[in-house]
């Protein structure tokens, strides 16, 4: 009985396939970004000898990793990528400021339920937010996919996360994702597809928090069950099979889940926020494909409204996309963040890879809404990165130390600004 991975890969292979098989599959969409595009283009033309991509309409190129360029050499490489996109007649180039690839390709309707999407970025598992099988690959695999429209892989086993109930106020998808990393550890789902169930109430943006975090437990894909998706057309063949076979199931009662925090220097080094002690914070960074969306900014703004950052704290907001930024600008969310003392970066990957727009100095402590706290990830290997939700990040920005939102919000509990129904009611 098929898992989501087996259903999607069976369609992509043109025959029924099961976990453990090595298969050659047709890809629906290939994503490459500025950081690796130069090497991919080199392998495609100079090593594989291919002159054209197999189908330009199924290729998307995103300038997000260093956007805008920070050095002349990066600017030259981006220029060459733009020229290549034109020469190949690729219709989908998302240039500086449009945002992070995974977010943008879903917003644009290019990544859709049931698709097989391969991307030159490990967080390509994020396409599972709309029940696509998204997986990250390196330069050579992406070049081969561009040349042939195909890739080869082993059909993965599946680890199932089954959530029950609803989050407490101040707790959100990030806390679930970190809790799962705490349980499974960094290698607990190596080579597996991670399926997320019981989360029908989540908007696709919050689902992407979980889908992107799936790689942090080793996942090959991270697919959230498509029930409750409103904006996407779910193919009739993609459904939850009650008989599907899972390598492991992890149950989580959301009602008892407290804010989680990932302590330096590994993602799975997770504790309850209340157990971490008093940790002073220099930088609060809200952004990334994991937690840089409108709902994340709105959840932070709700906590920061009418308040100011603690003295000595810098807060950097880097929206996941231009659409997220426009939405935050339109309804006053952005103004609230700026009035509190936060500042704004160009939509994109920002400092997540430690390249620009807020890299850290030795001994600096950052509360980061992203997905990796590896030593040196955001700059100096002497910096300390704590992964947390936007709610915890905002609360910590107000106090200057790691803080539970309920400590700083006078009219607790917070209203829910994240679920689609709640957002509609507030509007």
């Amino acid at each position, binding site marked *: 009985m098929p898992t989501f991975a087996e259903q999607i890969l069976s369609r992509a292979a043109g025959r029924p396939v099961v976990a453990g098989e090595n298969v050659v599959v047709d890809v629906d969409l290939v994503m490459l970004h500025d*950081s690796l595009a130069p090497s991919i283009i080199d392998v495609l033309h100079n090593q594989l000898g291919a002159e054209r991509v197999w189908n330009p309409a199924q290729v998307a190129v995103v300038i997000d990793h260093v956007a805008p360029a920070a050095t002349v050499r990066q600017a030259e490489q981006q220029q060459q990528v733009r020229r290549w996109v034109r020469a190949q007649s690729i219709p989908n180039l998302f240039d500086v400021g449009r945002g992070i690839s995974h977010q943008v390709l879903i917003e644009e309707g290019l990544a859709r339920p049931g698709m097989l999407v391969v991307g030159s970025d490990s967080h390509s598992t994020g396409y599972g937010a709309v029940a696509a099988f998204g997986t990250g690959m390196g330069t050579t695999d992406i070049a081969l996919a561009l040349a042939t429209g195909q890739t080869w892989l082993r059909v993965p086993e599946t680890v199932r996360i089954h959530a029950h109930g609803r989050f407490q106020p101040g707790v959100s998808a990030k806390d679930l994702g970190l809790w799962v990393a705490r349980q499974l550890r960094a*290698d607990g789902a190596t*080579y597996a597809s991670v399926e997320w169930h019981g989360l029908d109430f989540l908007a696709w943006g919050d689902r992407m928090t979980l889908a992107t975090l799936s790689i942090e437990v080793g996942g090959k894909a991270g697919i959230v069950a498509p029930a409750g998706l409103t904006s996407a057309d779910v193919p009739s063949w993609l459904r939850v099979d009650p008989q599907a076979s899972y390598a492991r199931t992890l149950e989580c009662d959301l009602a008892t889940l407290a804010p989680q925090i990932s302590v330096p220097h590994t993602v799975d080094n997770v504790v309850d926020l209340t157990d971490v002690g008093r940790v002073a914070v220099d930088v609060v960074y809200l952004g990334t494909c994991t937690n840089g969306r409108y709902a994340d900014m709105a959840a932070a703004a709700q906590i920061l409204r009418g308040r100011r950052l603690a003295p000595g704290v810098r807060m950097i907001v880097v929206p996941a996309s231009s659409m997220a930024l426009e939405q935050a600008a339109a309804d006053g969310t952005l103004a609230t963040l700026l009035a509190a003392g936060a500042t704004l970066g160009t939509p994109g990957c920002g400092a997540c890879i430690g*390249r620009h727009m807020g890299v850290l100095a030795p001994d600096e402590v950052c509360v980061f809404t992203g997905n990796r706290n590896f030593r040196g990830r955001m700059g100096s290997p002497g910096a300390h990165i704590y992964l947390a939700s936007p709610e915890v990040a905002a609360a910590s920005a107000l106090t200057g130390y790691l803080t539970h939102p309920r400590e700083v919000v006078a009219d607790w509990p917070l209203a829910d600004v994240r679920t689609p129904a709640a957002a509609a009611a507030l509007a």
Partner: protein
Amino acid sequence: MARIWMFGADVNTDQIVPGRYAPYMLSAGDDLRRYPFVEARPDFAPSVQPGDLIVAGPNFGCGSSREYAPLALKLVGVGAIIAPLFARIFYRNALNLGIPCFTADLRAQLRDGDQVDFDLATGTLTLADGTLLNLPAPPAFMRAVWAEGGIVPYYRRYGRFPGAAQ
């Protein structure tokens, strides 16, 4: 002789080559060979010799999809990587580049700096005291990719992916 370079568990690709040292970030004329483990183990790049072996704990190569991490190891001539579990994307990238990865835990039998003889064809390490360690045989398709020097020459020779119908 091959030197053993010993690493712990969960070595991530940011440790192998930090994103700040990606080819995208380097000045023209700079060389990726300078940067494997540049921060995590600064003595590695200046002294690693072709054929040396990396022996590590589980989940080697977790994190980013950056192929320049295994590429940097290939460029300095790492002969094989031996770990009880590899992260998925790293394992695949290494195969694509023709870097042999063996799934085995040799941390108890070897120490950092040990000198061994390594025979890739048989997957055998011979320690200084004569002890033989046999690595588990990889699947045939993997050996075929290694034999070609990576997936690109493999694909160019056979016109298909490993395991595909002929």
